[in-house]
């Protein structure tokens, strides 16, 4: 009985606090996905050597309460034929729980394609996240992209967020830089209860020998995305846990990708 009292004394304030902080029913929705793919098609006369590899994770959950996951995957794709060669690598990792999610991707490609032949190669990463909260919720967003330059091909990074109020930046993209560089965005934004907060980031490397003739390049593109729920003021520890909880509770109705 004594233990129960102690337990009650610990739990009751938390329940009260959570009721105050997230009043109303927990109706959340959480979606998360990260996918990578690389395709190489080396053509020489009537000969075609093709290689394709992809991998990905996608989650759609009604509640994140007590749930979380993390993982990583790597795949390499390579083709070499008659003087042409292409190597493409994707290294991706992810983590999510009630506090939010993060995803990291490193893409690397080395090409020596063409010489009159219609060869091509692509390397792509897509990161997607969606959260619906049952109360107005503050969220931290961090995006960082580093890229090498590209010559004779396509290098692009695309970033977009939806469902936040008055965010100063809702989208950005780079396309075909000849030099190396980066961009980094960090914002604290408000997501209103019931609104679907969405984040989409894509990284793309592509070479097409038909368009560019002989295409030789070594290209790197890395992407990091971190989205975290800001715990309610003064609500450390358990309240942060409940923040995660709230993050997961989405209203399913009317939410679409």
């Amino acid at each position, binding site marked *: 009985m004594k233990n129960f009292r102690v337990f009650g004394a610990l739990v009751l304030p938390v329940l009260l606090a959570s009721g105050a902080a997230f009043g109303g029913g927990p109706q959340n929705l959480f979606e998360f996905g990260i996918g990578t793919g690389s395709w190489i098609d080396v053509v020489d006369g009537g000969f075609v050597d093709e290689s394709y590899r992809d991998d990905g994770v996608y989650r759609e959950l009604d509640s994140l309460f007590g749930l979380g996951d993390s993982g990583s995957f790597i795949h390499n794709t390579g083709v070499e034929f008659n003087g042409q060669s292409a190597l493409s690598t994707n290294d991706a990792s992810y983590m999510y729980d009630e506090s939010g999610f*993060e995803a990291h991707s490193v893409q690397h490609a080395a090409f020596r394609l063409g010489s009159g032949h219609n060869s091509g190669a692509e390397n792509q990463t897509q990161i997607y996240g969606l959260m619906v909260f049952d109360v107005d919720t503050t969220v931290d*967003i*961090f995006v*960082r992209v580093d*890229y090498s*330059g590209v010559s004779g091909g396509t290098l692009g990074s695309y970033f977009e967020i939806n469902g*936040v*109020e*008055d*965010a*100063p*930046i809702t*989208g*950005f*993209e*780079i*396309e*075909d*830089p*000849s*030099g*190396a*560089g*980066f*961009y*980094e*965005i*960090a*914002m*604290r*934004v*408000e997501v209103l209860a019931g609104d679907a907060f969405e984040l989409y980031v894509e990284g793309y490397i592509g070479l097409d020998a038909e368009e560019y003739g002989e295409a030789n390049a070594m290209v790197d593109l890395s992407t*990091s995305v*971190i989205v975290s729920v800001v715990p309610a003021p003064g609500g450390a520890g358990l309240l942060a846990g409940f923040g995660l909880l709230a993050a997961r509770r989405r209203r399913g109705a009317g939410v679409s990708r």
Partner: protein
Amino acid sequence: MNPLYRFLIAGAAFGAASSGAHAGLSELYVAAGSSNHSYIEYEKDSQRDADSDSYGQFFPKGSDFTSNWAWETDAMVSLGGQGAYSKSVSTLGTDSSGFAYTSTVDFGADLGSSGIRSTSSAAHHFDAQMMFDSDTEIEFFYRVDFEPSDTSFQYAFAVISGLRGTPTQGLDAGDSSSSGYYMGGYRAVAPAGEWIYLEAQIFGETDTDYGNPVQYSGSYTLTTIVRVVPAPGGLGVLAGIGLLSARRRR
């Protein structure tokens, strides 16, 4: 701004100044300024305070391209229980390797007695034109820090044009109820004999027409750096930025 960040930027700028001393900058023009304005109406009375300052210099061929400016402007008013202030601190340094510009404004306002219009604003601008004797690889870095405001208007941008093969640029921040920062940087080639233009601005305004009354305080900062990449392998600014970003990552 975080002191460490200032330190890193200063270090990067110093590195730029020291490492690219013999780079191929041919001609350079820089201009920068800040202005502050605060205005209060109360019954039949009003009070206004304004301050502005600007610098501009053209460096022809054969110059050493070296200059350093630091200036402050501010405006403060108080009337009938209302008050507003803004203070801008700006620095601009140039040498043969490029230039670095930073401007920060701190401002606060407690304005508005129903039906009476009061305003406070601060604006910073920076323009540069540069030309090189030969095709020259340069690094461009920009950063904007901002704080949220529901009752003021803010925008900021930094755009460089004329470089060869630069990525698409669309990263400007508009009206913000969020806090945060954005920054970017890249390395690109400035073609010989062509003018390269850089324009950067940051602006903030509080007006009781946006909401009445207004109670707000905050700050925002704009930094932009251009430097010649010493041959071979100039890692100065980008290395500094790398440290910066690493520090901000989890």
